[in-house]
């Protein structure tokens, strides 16, 4: 009796386990697809926001450039500019040999992300502006050959705050002098 029913039962069991296997594999595939789509959606969503700092930096530089252009030679203007945390403002004159390659052969104004000064072991301070701006920043050709940024320290740059900075721009015939008012 048992020998007669054994073979069909084995066949049924084998079929059931095969169906289960297909079911599980299918579940795994759909789960993998679902997860993939989920991560893609999250990545896409974050990606839309990721380059916002760069856009903001560009807008800030546009704004500074516009305010400079709006000044006549010999005029001084003070302008509140929204800051950008972790970025700094710098500029190089045309004959400055240490300017970033982004500036080509011109004088330029740049907004760059990172630390413009590196501290040494013996308390030295190394100017990192050029490298930082070359790596991550936006530079624009300045309309005057000479650019002076008056920063707080010897290595001149203006650290962008988290809130608002007031820039004082003095435009002369051959030069911009830009400083941050405290």
């Amino acid at each position, binding site marked *: 009796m048992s020998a007669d029913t054994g073979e069909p039962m084995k066949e049924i069991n084998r079929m059931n386990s095969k169906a289960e296997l297909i079911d599980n594999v299918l579940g795994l*595939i*759909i789960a993998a697809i679902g997860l993939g789509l989920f991560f*893609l959606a999250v990545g*896409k969503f974050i990606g839309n926001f990721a380059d916002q700092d760069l856009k903001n930096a560009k807008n800030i530089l546009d*704004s500074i450039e516009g305010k400079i252009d709006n000044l006549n030679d010999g005029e001084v203007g003070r302008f*509140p500019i929204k800051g950008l945390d972790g970025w700094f403002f710098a500029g190089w004159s045309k004959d400055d040999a240490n300017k970033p390659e982004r500036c080509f052969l011109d004088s330029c104004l740049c907004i760059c992300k990172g630390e413009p000064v590196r501290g040494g072991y013996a308390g030295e301070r190394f100017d990192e502006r050029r490298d930082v701006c070359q790596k991550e920043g936006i530079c624009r050709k300045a309309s005057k050959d000479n650019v002076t940024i008056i920063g707080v320290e010897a290595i001149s740059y203006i650290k962008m705050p988290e*809130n608002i900075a007031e820039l004082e721009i003095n435009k002369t015939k051959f030069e911009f002098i830009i400083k941050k008012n405290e």
Partner: protein
Amino acid sequence: MRKRGVEAYFLPIILLAIVGFFIVLYFLTSFDLIGYSEDEVCKLSILSRATSPDAAKGIVPIQCTTKKLCLTKDGDCRKNFAGEKPEVVKLSSDENGAIEQIEKASADAILDCWKMMGEGKLDLFGGLKSELGWEQGKPACVICSRIAIDDSVGVETLNKTNINEYMRANNVEGLGINYISALTEGGAVSYAKTNPVEQKNAFEKFEKGKSKIELSTSKEPNREMAIVFMQFKPASVGDVLNNMIGIGGTIAGATFLSPIGALARPIVANPIGGGLAIIGVGTIAGYGMYNAYQGQLTAVNYCGNFTTSGKDSIGGCSMVQGINYNVRDINEICPQIQGNP
């Protein structure tokens, strides 16, 4: 037969899954924010930020771009907005018409800002010091709008504007209720009277170690205002609420952002959902044109529990106020500003 049955059952599912995958993939890859208006992007980012857990708030930036509005009779707005792209509103040559346009633009900017930021009830900056730099008790701000009034508009015209009265007497377009009602979700339609003797800075303890806010009192005309949304989490929301409620039954919220020593600010309080929404009004004289204009700008405050995605509701205060757009005043109130310039 059974094997064929199993295949016939699973094959359509696999095909559907693959087709579905490509359809969703197509929509995902074609999704970006380029086609959206600035307001839609802002709203989306505010909702995303508010519904993110604290730890993830840092990776969802607030994508609200400051609106630039230039009100002018015949100027070109370059003095205030050189290098930027303002919306230029040509004011009527008739003085009364110009006054109404200034009042409407200012009232709309306040209401838009308040609505856009979730009426102060959304927790936008998290509860802990995080990537956002948020610290307990330290305010963070978003500058919703900058409104500049060009030199072509006379000081006399500015002095005749009455934004508070405009907000009380006029309905919001398409809503059929006045601005005060729209700001307080129908909780108030007018300003209440207050006892000037009881006036004090209701928010003076908003930041530890900072007993008062000092804004510039220069008589130099300043024709640019910022409509600023601010949120902070005082050490104890209860203290702030008690402080506000305890002032003769009314609230001196506007004192918060008014030059110290200024008087007479009728306020109305309106409890909403366990919190407190306030309309504060400043009527300041003696500081010159700029302060007269600033004093007319209503402050909208909300103190209470935020609506959060988490289980525990966090308390805090939010407000929208017009502030003189200069470094000193903005930075005095906002140690940190988020959003796009």
